[in-house]
């Protein structure tokens, strides 16, 4: 990942609001995406991820900043001349054209010879497993099939970068899982750089070689799914990616004093995080990183809820003024009941300090 294939430099985009104000959709965003990468842009709605995708596609123009593809600027050329293609959230198929005509459209715009168009349409339809449906109209297809047509239409152009704008959000869960696997396969087979926008953190973790987490028009963190899950840079990322307890603790001489009076020894903290000398700070602990202990408990409190979820049992423990969630293996020996006093501690090097 040394040379940037798609290089986004200081891109800013603002939109006027109907009330006469201004919304900053992208605030001086820098991002380098490598060739052949499955790159995911993740964030809550309105975080700027779709705006950036549309700026790359050429459907929006940045107010300032540059977008480079293989070292040359593309942000000032019109969308139709850019070697990137988009799979739209609503599929955006042409309702008056058949499946084959939809897929052929982009190739006809390139004025390719007829027989080449024909073979590339057939190849694209085979790639997305739609062979035999080429004469149907989009209205005669299921949502999943329409999705595949949109994919084939973009892939047939053999773009340098394929942009996918929440392409799976309209599919039901089972279909979505299947398409996730298939998109990974297509990306591996074609070697095309995929830039995939989603607000679903689970989808992002499943699919991305790397993930950029967006919030309020800025990129908060870029990294592999493991890095982002295990070493979130702040409370927002920790909370957005998976489930996290954000626990307000006081830094004392013996360690971190938890609400409710428990203490976590400083040595048990993850190694690569900053610890303030004194005062208060936030600790992030995943629910599955808690274990029941007899002594040296960090969380001491009353069990207020016990939820059986199959492999895991979720304990809601009230410690001081905070409720902490722990997910314990359901085959564990003793399962506390509601009303019990319980003692928990994060396993070694699982708790991290985070900025808010």
């Amino acid at each position, binding site marked *: 990942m040394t040379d940037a294939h798609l290089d986004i430099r200081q891109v800013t985009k603002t939109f006027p609001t109907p009330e006469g104000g201004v919304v900053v959709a992208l605030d001086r965003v820098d991002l380098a995406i490598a060739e052949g990468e499955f790159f995911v842009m993740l964030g809550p709605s309105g975080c700027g991820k779709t705006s950036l995708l549309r700026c790359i*596609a*050429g*459907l929006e123009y940045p107010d300032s900043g540059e977008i480079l593809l293989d070292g040359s600027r593309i942000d000032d050329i*019109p*969308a*139709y*001349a850019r070697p990137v*293609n*988009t799979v*739209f959230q*609503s*599929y*955006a*198929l*042409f*309702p*008056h054209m058949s499946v084959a005509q939809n897929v052929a*459209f*982009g190739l006809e*715009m*390139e004025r390719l010879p007829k027989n080449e168009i024909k073979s590339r349409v057939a190849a694209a339809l085979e790639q997305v497993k739609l062979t035999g449906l080429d004469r149907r*109209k989009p209205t005669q297809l299921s949502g999943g099939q329409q999705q595949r047509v949109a994919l084939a*239409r*973009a892939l047939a*152009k053999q773009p340098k970068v394929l942009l996918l704008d929440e392409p799976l959000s309209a599919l039901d869960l089972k279909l979505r899982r299947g398409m996730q696997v298939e998109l990974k396969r297509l990306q591996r087979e074609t070697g095309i750089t995929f830039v995939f926008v989603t607000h679903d953190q689970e989808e992002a973790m499943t699919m991305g070689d790397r993930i950029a987490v967006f919030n309020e028009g800025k990129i908060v963190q870029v990294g592999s799914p493991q890095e982002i899950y295990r070493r979130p840079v702040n409370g927002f990322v920790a909370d957005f990616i998976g489930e996290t307890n954000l626990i307000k603790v006081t830094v004392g001489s013996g360690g971190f004093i938890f609400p409710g009076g428990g203490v976590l020894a400083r040595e048990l903290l993850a190694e690569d995080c900053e610890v303030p000398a004194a005062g208060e700070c936030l600790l992030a602990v995943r629910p599955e990183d808690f274990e029941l202990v007899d002594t040296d408990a960090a969380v001491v409190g009353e069990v207020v809820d016990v939820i059986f979820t199959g492999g895991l049992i979720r304990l809601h423990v009230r410690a001081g003024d905070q409720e902490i969630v722990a997910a314990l293996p359901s085959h564990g020996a003793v399962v506390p009941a509601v009303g019990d006093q319980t003692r928990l501690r994060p396993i070694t090097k699982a708790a991290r300090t985070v900025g808010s």
Partner: protein
Amino acid sequence: MSPVTTSRPRRRLVNLSNFPLFRGTSIAVLVGMYLPLLLVVFYSFNQNRLAQIWTGFSFKWYDFVFHNDDILRALKNSLIVAVVATILSTLLALGAALGMLRMARSGRVFAWGLLGAPLLIPEIVLAVGTLGFFLTIKVPLGHVALILAHTAFCIPFALLPIRARLAGLDAAPFEAATDLGANEWQILRRITLPLLAPGILAGALLAFAISLDDFITSFFIAGPGATTLPVYIFGMIRSNVTPAVNALSTLLLIFSATMLLAVYLLNRIRRSD
């Protein structure tokens, strides 16, 4: 097991059909609307030369219509004016609708108001104005003047369905076309026009019907050589109400019904394709 349907109970504020006068009113309205048409058709087959006295069945008034040079000339004038005015007004309305897409919101509202207002202005005012205008700029009354006037008053009608269709279109296919490498001209030809086609067809039909049917403006503008069919029929009735008027009207009725049916069938074929 019966297939799952998603039908929802229809919401009604008031169920009008429960009111005692509902049936009677409905029947009276339908009779008022369609009985005159039935009478026209019925008396067109009347043998008697006085239109409202039935004496026997005959096709002779149809024969009269088909062999009357004045009627045929008026019909020809009407068709020429209607066809040309339809083409011109539909093209202009299409251009206006596409042009308005690019305007800022306030400009679009203003433009739409300007183009739509003639729908609300009494036609007699427009007709007097048009006549005065043509006399001032010395456009000779006749075919050209008729075509110009008809084109002008058909534009708002042609614009109505085109704009409705345009407003109902999703922006996404246009973005997809750009994304796939189509420039503005290619988008217009391959995406915009095919998607607008039903609106354009409806607009053209509306313009054609309005033009063919027009009396007031045509009466003012036609001049001696360019009498249109409605103007001629008016003249026929003033001099002598013969069943020939009924026969002519029946033929017009069949013509418009055929046109409606053709459009309906055309739409069905397009949809099932």
